[in-house]
């Protein structure tokens, strides 16, 4: 157990003193995954809303795609994005591979189906009668949509948490398209891999604790949502 005690002490010293750029790595992680989730929400909630409330041709197909997308292997996303953005690839002229935008792009692809599927489930849980009633009381389509989203807000929060959770812990795709460049594209997961490879267990464990903390917060949020949903059912 000495190995853990020693590493834990090193890691703690590092976090407190700010000697290693551990905090800047955390910042890049939050920045990249934050932007990706934000974009995933902007695109995913309208898709989820349509899937959850409207009846249209191809809806079933899109639901299948969204649900399949939730299990999309991140390394596959990494591979395809890396090939697209590579200097020899179709978008090579943009010189985007191994940059933050490339990471955001890959994470967006991973998070979008999650956000869409979870928010579709959330809005379809809002009783249809409620929407009809709103319409009969003279609400416009926009007002009706906003009311539905408001009713489904806890589920939408779950969509945010699930989307963020799906990318913050991901390591394959961000390594492939980010390149783990110090101070630029190095995030918590890629840094943990690197420090472990180098045998520097201290900073690896420090970052691992922070990552666990973040995942914990996300899951506390999710549990909160579940419990309030149970209350709603009663």
């Amino acid at each position, binding site marked *: 157990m000495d*190995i853990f005690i020693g590493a834990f002490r090193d890691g703690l010293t590092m976090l407190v003193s700010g000697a290693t750029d551990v905090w800047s790595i955390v910042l890049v992680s939050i920045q990249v995954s934050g932007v990706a989730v934000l974009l995933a929400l902007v695109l995913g909630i309208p898709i989820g809303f349509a899937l959850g409330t409207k009846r249209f041709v191809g809806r079933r197909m899109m639901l299948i795609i969204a649900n399949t997308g939730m299990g999309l292997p991140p390394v596959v996303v990494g591979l395809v994005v890396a090939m697209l953005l*590579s*200097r*020899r690839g179709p978008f090579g002229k943009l*010189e985007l*591979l*191994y940059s933050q935008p490339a990471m955001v792009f890959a994470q967006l692809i991973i998070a979008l189906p999650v956000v869409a599927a979870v928010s579709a489930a959330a809005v379809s849980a809002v009783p249809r009668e409620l929407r009809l009633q709103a319409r009969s009381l003279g609400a416009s389509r926009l007002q009706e949509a906003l009311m539905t989203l408001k009713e489904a807000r806890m589920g939408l929060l779950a969509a945010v948490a699930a989307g963020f959770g799906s990318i913050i812990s991901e390591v394959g795709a961000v*390594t492939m398209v980010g*390149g*783990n*460049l*110090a*101070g*630029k594209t*190095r995030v918590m997961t*890629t*840094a943990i891999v*690197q420090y*472990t*490879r*180098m*045998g520097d267990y201290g900073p690896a464990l420090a970052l691992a604790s922070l990552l666990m903390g973040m995942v914990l917060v996300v899951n506390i949020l999710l549990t909160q949502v579940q419990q309030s949903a149970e209350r709603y059912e009663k």
Partner: protein
Amino acid sequence: MRDRSVRPAAWRLAATALAIVLAFSLIGCAKAAEEPKAPEPVAVEKTKVVLASTTSTQDSGLFDVLIPAFEKANPEYTVEVIAVGSGEALKMGENKDADVLLVHSPAAEKTFMEAGFGIERRDVMYNDYVLVGPAADPAGVKAAKDLKGVMKALSGGKAPFMTRDDKSGTHSKELKLWKDASISPTGTANAKDWYLATGQGMGETLKIANEKQGYTISDRATFLTSKGALDLVILREGDKGLLNQYGVITVKDAARPEGAAAFMEWITSAEGQKVVGEYGVEKFGQALFTPNAK
């Protein structure tokens, strides 16, 4: 709800699909289980030996030839290669997670031996590093008189330079080149813009250098192996400071000391040295390593 009538059909479809997938994976398992049995003529009790080495050695493809040759000569052992950076390989030795090490970081190896973590260290072979970059050579390293001049030209920051920054043998070599030229790359004014730390293996670092159209230092073997996917060329080679010495170390208090000793004896023997010296001739038209065990 609305779709209740279609549910059973959908379930049946899903169940069938799942059954098919499972059936295929079983066939796959059966095949995988059958294959390795064939090439074993006699049942010998085999001892596993853990060899910690570096990603660049692994990437060079040497182990694909070396390990089978060793196992043929010493049928009582099987070798498991763990390829990491030289730093972690030495750390694995320190933690006794490996029995024998094959690394190329002479200064770190010396510290390792002095700290009493190893039983014995021997020279095995050397290969050389090459400085690669875009053919246009924006930093002008080709024109430099010697390696000091090369490092000075690179530190001008005209083009990015990728550093492994992972305590690997290649990284230590790079740091030594900077030190010999009395330059601190991270101390230059615009270091953030040109001195980029990848923290990754050689193959990945070459790819990043290629995308950024920058320079990096690579072992020749990895560069030759990954050259096909790169638009980088060798701009500097053959300088004395670019030689790369490999050493084999048996780990003190290792789990399988006999296997470790057998590997050390074999790789430094005439037979092992011959395998080392011939590797690459067939595939690349040139040997990748020069054996130099005493």
